[in-house]
């Protein structure tokens, strides 16, 4: 088994601020399916890109690190035997039908805190 990060991208102009809209619903449903299937290890949905702050050598600036039309919406990590299996899972992400896309990257390693705050 190997871990793959699936990173969600969408065009800035296509992102609706309406978190309760039908687009968001498709993602919640997809997330539930992956949780039930047991392949998803962790998932992070990010707040809108305009809440991001970037840090470079000598400056702290407003907005995402790279000025681009596409922005990262979130990412999740799945377990799969190989790239074909990971791609099959990633292809089912609703963002693809919504005009965005995903990037699949093998995970080299990760750490998680073993204790949780109450």
């Amino acid at each position, binding site marked *: 088994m190997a871990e793959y990060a699936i990173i969600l991208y969408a065009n800035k102009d296509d992102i609706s601020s309406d978190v309760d809209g039908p687009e968001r619903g498709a993602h919640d449903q997809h997330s539930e399916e992956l949780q039930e299937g047991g392949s998803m290890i962790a998932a992070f949905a990010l707040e809108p890109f305009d809440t991001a702050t970037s840090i470079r050598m000598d400056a702290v600036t407003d907005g995402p690190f790279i000025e681009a039309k596409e922005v990262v919406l979130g990412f999740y990590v799945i377990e799969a035997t190989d790239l*074909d*299996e990971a791609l099959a899972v990633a292809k089912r992400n609703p963002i693809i039908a919504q005009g965005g896309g995903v990037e699949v990257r093998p995970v080299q390693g990760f750490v998680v805190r073993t204790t949780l705050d109450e």
Partner: protein
Amino acid sequence: MDERTQSALRDAFRSEWAHVLAATIRVTHDIDLAEDSVQQAFTEALAAWSRDGVPRNPGAWLTTTAKRRAIDALRRNVTQQRKIPLLIEPERPFDEDANPATRASGVEMNVATDDTMRLILLCCHPSLSNESQVALTLRLVCGMTTDDIARCFLVEKATMAARLTRAKKKIVVARIPFCLPRGPEVTKRLEAVMGVVYLLFTIGHTSPTGDTLFRRDVCAEALRLARLLHGLWPEVREISGLLALLLVNDARRDSRVSPVGRAQSMADQDRAKWNTAMIDEARQLMRANHEAGPRGRYTLQAAIALQHVEAPTYDEVDWHEIVQLYDELVQLWSTPVVQLNRAVALSKTSGPLDALAIVEGLETDARLERYHYLPAVKAYLLDQLGRSDEAQRARHRAFELSSNEVERDFLGAQLRGASPH
């Protein structure tokens, strides 16, 4: 070393390299180690075959030797020292090496075929860039040297070596599996494979730089790959179409360049120089290819190419049929180059004015901005309309854009009014 051994070894290299490497990868799960082992087997064959004679089944001899060298290396922990993860092979229908004594020879054949299919699909995995796919296929399936692959792409050897290393690293790190998908998935994957073969043939056929001999080798390699694919997937219609297309185009190779090395337009080609055996083979493939369902882009292109060669003379070409085939092709593969070719055919049925309208429409397409064939076609159409000043300007543009010496000669002669066609 005697002549016979040398030629047997050359033949074995051409016909067996891919099978031997694929079978060895299955043992090593490590591409580099497998390549080294296969290289070693071929080196050993030189001495062994000179001494003991050429074995009855050279492929089997090479596979056994390569696997043995691989196992030796694995025992010496070569891969462990490199600390690289192994190739992934998710499905394994039966343990190939568990009981060789009970293995039927038919099964053995299937395993060899399966392994070669896996190797090809691995090289052409959609997650690899198109350039990497071609480079990997040439290296791993055709056994071409990095030097030659670099020449093929017109890059430095070091650049190509780095590209190959990067591609191999991605296969391992991203865990692209050494497996054989079935059903619709394999059909989709084969499209990439066919794309690689077609691109390779195009490079050989129209490479922008000189060196005719090398380009012939590249074409021969593409043809060999197409034959290999057809042997592995005989039921896939588009593969037959691709092979037929390559055959028809290659059959005309000797006539495309006139004795003084000048590019020949279709009208001027010496039809007697066409390789009739290859054309016959293409015709057979297309006949066997008449099952139901829509034709793909390679089958359609092959049908167009066959229409051209079936006519006894250039004047007897059935342009109506060709336009119809182009109409079908444009439906599923509407590239500007296809549209340009369709315009040429259309000029024969509907006249140069209709065709010129299409060509002028294509002039705004950025993809054809540096394509010398566009102004060449335009000049040809303008000539027919008697607009010779404009035609001359278009010819001049075509000459400027062409970087292939043979083409430049041809266009240069036209510019000087030597033999306008």
